[in-house]
């Protein structure tokens, strides 16, 4: 018998076992589907949030206000120093006049009427644009710390770093992440348990056959394969159900987001990579659970 016929033989045996206890198998498959979908959704929420953070991070700037009397040489020296720092994409130096010019444009022309040029606020300033490589909260905190140190540099009057929103986002994300990880683990464990139980029942209801097979010279692999395939099939079906469910949710959400141009980020719940992960993860979960169940309940 070639490997394919043999695999088909085992698959047939597995299908017969699944047909013998259909409801338990349905429950197993659904538990796997629910846990895989939620794990996938958590993962995608996390990735999408990260994309959002990257987006926000790339628009972050630090303004370093210099004292009025700073000489151009001094300003240039500070600029050089900042430019070399990690995470700084570019530094634009504005003279007092340039800053004043910019402020003038921001102010209401009526307000400026008859105003003394000197009364318009203006200060030499270095504007730092940051890399979008702020991948983690740690990166951001380091940047905040660095901004504080800049404040202590001679001739620097003030430093403005509008990172509060981003810091909040990171904090929220961290909570979501830990809740997601814990919940995913609980869900995966329960899926594992359901497959474990169905396989146990299958072993139990087939103990007479297992005994005869062993007595007649069947190898361990021959006896175990159908049960492992049963687990893997449950996992595969669970993954398929999960993919369909999340796919539908994705379409729903896509319609919603298209109407609300809020975000720069295109949220995706079901990228091809995720589909692949589910298709591999489902059967792997089923295999592991079936293997554990065999180890626990089958003495051959």
């Amino acid at each position: 018998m070639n490997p394919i016929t043999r695999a088909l033989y085992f698959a047939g045996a597995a299908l017969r076992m699944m047909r013998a206890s259909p409801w338990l198998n349905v429950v197993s498959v659904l538990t796997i589907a629910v846990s895989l979908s939620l794990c996938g959704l958590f993962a995608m929420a996390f990735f999408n949030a990260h994309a959002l953070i990257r987006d926000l991070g790339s628009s972050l700037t630090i303004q370093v206000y210099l004292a009025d009397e700073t000489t151009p040489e001094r300003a240039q020296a500070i600029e050089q120093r900042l430019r070399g720092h990690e995470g700084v994409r570019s530094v634009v130096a504005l003279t007092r006049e340039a800053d004043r010019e910019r402020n003038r444009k921001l102010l209401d022309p009526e307000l400026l009427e008859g105003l003394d040029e000197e009364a318009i606020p203006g200060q030499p300033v270095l504007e730092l644009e940051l890399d979008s490589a702020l991948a983690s909260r740690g990166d951001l905190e380091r940047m905040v710390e660095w901004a504080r140190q800049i404040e202590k540099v001679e001739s620097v009057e003030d430093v403005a770093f509008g990172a509060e929103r981003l810091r909040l986002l990171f904090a929220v994300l961290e909570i979501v992440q830990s809740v997601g990880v814990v919940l995913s683990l609980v869900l995966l464990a329960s899926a594992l348990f359901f497959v474990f139980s169905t396989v146990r029942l299958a072993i139990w209801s087939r103990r007479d056959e297992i005994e005869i097979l062993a007595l007649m010279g069947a190898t361990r692999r021959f006896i175990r394969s159908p049960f492992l395939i049963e687990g893997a099939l449950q996992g595969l079906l669970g993954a398929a159900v999960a993919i369909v469910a999340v796919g539908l949710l994705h379409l729903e959400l896509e319609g919603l987001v298209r109407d609300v141009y809020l975000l720069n980020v295109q949220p995706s719940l079901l990228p091809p990579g995720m589909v692949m992960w589910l298709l591999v993860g489902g059967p792997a979960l089923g295999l592991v659970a079936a293997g554990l169940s065999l180890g626990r309940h089958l003495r051959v």
Partner: protein
Amino acid sequence: MIQLYNVHKRYENGVVALHDVTLRVREGEMVFLTGPSGAGKSTLIRLLLCTERGSEGQILIGGRNIHALRDDSVPFLRRNFGVVFQDFRLIGRRNVRENVAIGMEILGLPRKDIERRTEQLLEALGIAHRGAAFPRDLSGGEAQRVAIARALVNEPAILLCDEPTGNLDPTLSREIIDLLSEVNRRGTTVLVATHDAALIERYGCRTLTLEGGRLTLDRPRRDAVGLEASGLGASAVGTASAAAPPGREATQEPAEAP
């Protein structure tokens, strides 16, 4: 074919089921194993099948010592045996044909061969008309014939029967033992554990008696009385074993079918 040297078996609970048993069954012999309940007959069969391991002594099957056989070699040892039990042990979910096919599925034979061989065996055992029946619908005699067909399907060198007639009335019992004798005439070594003194008398085969785990009597074949026990008598039968399929020695480990 089967050799035991000073075999002891002590179960985990401390019961000594076999005590210093030494015996030899030659290729092509038919041997009854008898003795009172608890004498150790089933234990002896379990040791041969490696479902239990001996505590001391040596067991050779086809010249190979199975005392230290690795766990993953056990299935290949078992393929030398056919087994038949008192309670038939047919699989209720499988019909008669599917029960008989089990051994060939293990070997991974092609479906066509399995079907042909199954029909052939059912025919030979007179149960061809019951091929589609399920075990719960079989009479005791039919069920035991199916069990024998299942045990013989891969032409084992040795047929081990533990109380094969225990659940059958005397007429059916005789039919089953007639069947086993016929199997033996075709070259298979047959070992039958039984309580049934009348049966043993009727057939006059070599008879080993166990009592309290000790081998107390080795009575030779009736027509061989006077000759050395299991010596000439067995070798005379042994010539018939040329008909036995080759490649059935325990020393051989056929690679598992792919």
